[in-house]
């Protein structure tokens, strides 16, 4: 054997060995993306959680790294299925209907938003559901349990209107409690009520209540209109009454003043020549009324008494 072939026999296994070692080593090199965290397990035991960037672990089979997208906000529909929603299939009654206090039924769709806050728990703590769904769907079950209780304590009018905000807030904290209990490793960001309606079967009756409010408002508006029209009219009438009184007052006083002035003038005139003036006034009067009517002049000095028979 030559020196050359000796060298080759020595080198080939070394190079092969190094190649295998390098390849083996690369199984311990990982890239964790910006929106991810990595969970490193050593012999199947969670060892550490690592942040985005290039990460090194012991090579397989000693350590493994699993990546989880932790910044992504995930959604979980409650009261309907996303798939049905996309296909335009209406939700089933048992999905969308909830019992409210006073034994009413309300239709409600909600959307939960959550992020993965504990990647190790999220990955390893909860098994897939028997239906094959991921553990994320346990969030829906926890949420349904809490909502059934909360909605069951509310009057339907509250669920449909003013109670929504409070329901969302209370539900968020209580569902989070259940999530902790089930160790799902996620944190609820928001509980949003997308829709809350009376069931289709009774929607007419509910709409009629809204119409009733409108009717009531219309009645009030009409009454207000009547008020706006009536009061100025009555004020005008009142003003007319007062003005007429003022006119009467003016006329009456002016008439009195006129009569007084005339009397004063006559009195002055009469004073200047009392006898003649009075005689004239007297005669004018007598003349005026004797000129009217029937007149009979008889001789009261005659022997025969004067007789007159008046018949009416």
């Amino acid at each position: 054997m030559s020196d050359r072939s000796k060298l080759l026999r020595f080198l080939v296994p070394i190079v092969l060995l190094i190649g295998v070692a390098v390849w083996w080593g690369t199984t311990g090199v990982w890239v964790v993306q910006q929106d991810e965290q990595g969970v490193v397990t050593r012999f199947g035991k969670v060892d550490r959680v690592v942040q985005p960037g290039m990460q090194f672990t012991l090579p397989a089979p000693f350590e493994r790294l699993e990546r989880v997208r932790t910044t992504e906000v995930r959604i979980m529909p409650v009261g309907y299925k996303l798939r049905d929603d996309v296909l335009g299939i209406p939700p089933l009654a048992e999905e969308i209907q909830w019992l409210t206090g006073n034994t009413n039924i309300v239709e409600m769709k909600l959307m939960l938003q959550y992020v993965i806050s504990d990647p190790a728990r999220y990955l390893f703590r909860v098994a897939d559901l028997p239906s094959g769904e991921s553990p994320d769907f346990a969030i829906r079950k926890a949420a349904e349990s809490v909502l059934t209780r909360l909605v069951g304590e509310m009057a339907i009018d509250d669920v449909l209107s003013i109670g929504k905000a409070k329901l969302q807030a209370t539900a968020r904290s209580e569902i989070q409690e259940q999530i902790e209990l089930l160790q799902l490793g996620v944190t609820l960001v928001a509980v949003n009520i997308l829709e809350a309606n009376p069931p289709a079967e009774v929607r007419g009756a509910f709409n009629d209540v809204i119409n009733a409010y409108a009717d009531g408002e219309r009645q009030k508006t009409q009454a207000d209109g009547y008020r706006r029209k009536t009061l100025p009219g009555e004020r005008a009438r009142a003003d007319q009454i007062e003005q007429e009184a003022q006119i009467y007052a003016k006329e009456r006083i002016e008439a009195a003043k006129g009569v007084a002035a005339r009397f004063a003038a006559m009195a002055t005139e009469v004073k200047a020549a009392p006898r003649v003036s009075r005689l004239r006034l007297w005669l004018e009067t007598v003349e005026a009324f004797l000129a009217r009517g029937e007149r009979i002049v008889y001789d009261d000095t005659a022997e025969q008494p004067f007789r007159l028979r008046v018949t009416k």
Partner: protein
Amino acid sequence: MRKLFWTLIIIGLLIAAWLGCTVQVAEWETVILTRFGDPHDPLEEPGLYFKLPPPIETTIRIDRRVQIQDPPSQEYLTADKKNVIVDCFLAWEVRDAIQFLKSVRNVQGARSRLNDILLAEVNTILGETQLSALITTEPGNVTMRQVNEEITQRTAAKAQENLGVRVLAAKIKRLNFPGDNKTAVFRRMEAEREKIAQEIRSQGFAEAQKIRNQTEREAAAIVSEAQSAAERIRGEADAEATRVYAEAFEKDPEFYEFLRALEAYGKMFDENTLWVIPHSSPLLEGLLRKPGAGLPKANGDD
């Protein structure tokens, strides 16, 4: 060549020894070691363990993650004789792996046993519960909480005792009514709404009527105040006129009397009056007799 052969043999043996004498327990499982088929040692902490090689020691892996299960919904009769469809869910994990193995063998076996336990407990508890208490707007309603608590506790007790399982939660998830009852509920809801609508309308009418009434009252007040003011004005004017007359006539009352009498005569007699006048009347003095005898002295001041 022989060297390489032996090297490979040794590597093979090492790998076999590694596989046969170590056991990796992952985060989500408990591994039970069995010695000649007899389970004896549950490895609950994840990590790497050494053991005797098979067939002396073999392993059984038990999933110890939280299992969520959702038994089919069932119709129940509550204490107040209401039919209600109840949907529950259950969350559990293996607590005693050996007992779990002996009683149900695996998760599938546990699920069906737990379903039976849960449904039986729910049936018992709902039979003692009023539906009207379960869904109510009474303040401080705690029935649903209590019922959930009780379902969890009772299921947990049985599961722990018989299956080696710890129940984390066993709760009512959804409630609804069966078809016929639902129709009745809808009819009642409609009746409630009709009543509310009626009330709202009546209230609207009442408020509108109130506005009208108030308008009438204010209008009447405006007019009557004006009338009273008018009367006052007239009265004051009459008083003033009277005062003006009195002031004027007071200056010569006797002449006023004369003048007023003449005026009165003028009004007293008209064309229907029949005058019967004797010859001796002073009116005719100048006509029938020589004058100067008797015209009235209307005033005695000359």
